[in-house]
């Protein structure tokens, strides 16, 4: 449905704007697919969190996810539906952990953040086989800055729910970094195969 909708919008733009080149159209279509896809996913997950009356947590997970994943990279699903299911599971797992779990030992967190920092320094950003990365150095530096920011916030804040949310979001991001780097660069087909080898 999303590719169809983005194609329709692109066709409308072609008819009304003669200056657009073939490359521009491909870029527009791709951007529309990204925007519409993320918008639909956001609305669905927003509705779930609204139902559970956990909207502040939704916004926090959303901000952490977008400030780390965009820079470090991560696992992809092949289809929109599998991606939507994974996104919902991702958000709900963090919500459940944040609300139900208690805070662990401080030394455990210090070790975790130190190891994570090393992993990010070594592996981020993930290679993307579908799309070449042009600015790896900048992405690595920004990944480390973003991670350090969340670490500082984690140790500054006393709210267990927020701290748990930051911890699990970062842990899931680090796990993805490790998986992607062990299995080679991100490839939708490869990840889907890997995903189904775990589920079957």
């Amino acid at each position, binding site marked *: 449905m999303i590719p169809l909708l983005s194609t329709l919008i692109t066709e409308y733009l072609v008819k009304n704007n003669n200056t657009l080149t*073939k490359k521009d159209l491909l870029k527009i279509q791709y951007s529309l697919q990204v925007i519409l896809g993320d918008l639909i996913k956001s609305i669905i997950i927003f509705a779930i969190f609204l139902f559970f009356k956990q909207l502040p947590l939704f916004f926090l997970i959303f901000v952490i996810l977008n400030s780390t994943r965009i820079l470090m990279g991560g696992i992809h699903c092949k289809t929109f539906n599998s991606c939507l299911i994974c996104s919902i599971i991702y958000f709900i797992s963090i919500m459940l952990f944040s609300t139900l779990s208690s805070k662990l030992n401080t030394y455990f967190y210090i070790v975790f953040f130190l190891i994570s920092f090393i992993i990010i320094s070594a592996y981020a*950003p993930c290679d993307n086989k579908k799309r070449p990365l042009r600015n790896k150095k900048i992405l690595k530096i920004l990944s480390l800055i973003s991670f350090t920011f969340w670490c500082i916030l984690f140790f500054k804040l006393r709210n267990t729910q927020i701290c748990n949310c930051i911890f699990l979001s970062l842990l899931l991001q680090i796990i993805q970094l490790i998986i992607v780097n062990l299995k080679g660069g991100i490839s939708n087909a490869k990840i889907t195969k890997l995903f189904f080898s775990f589920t079957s």
Partner: protein
Amino acid sequence: MQKSLNFFSALLVKIFDLISNTSCLGYLGEPDYPEDLLK
């Protein structure tokens, strides 16, 4: 109307350039990158 359509098209092209500079998009999904743009 024409002006806003031109602006919207230009905005989407700019968004594409921005996306191309990231490591990964939004959540767990990413549409297939147009092969013609890899050349």
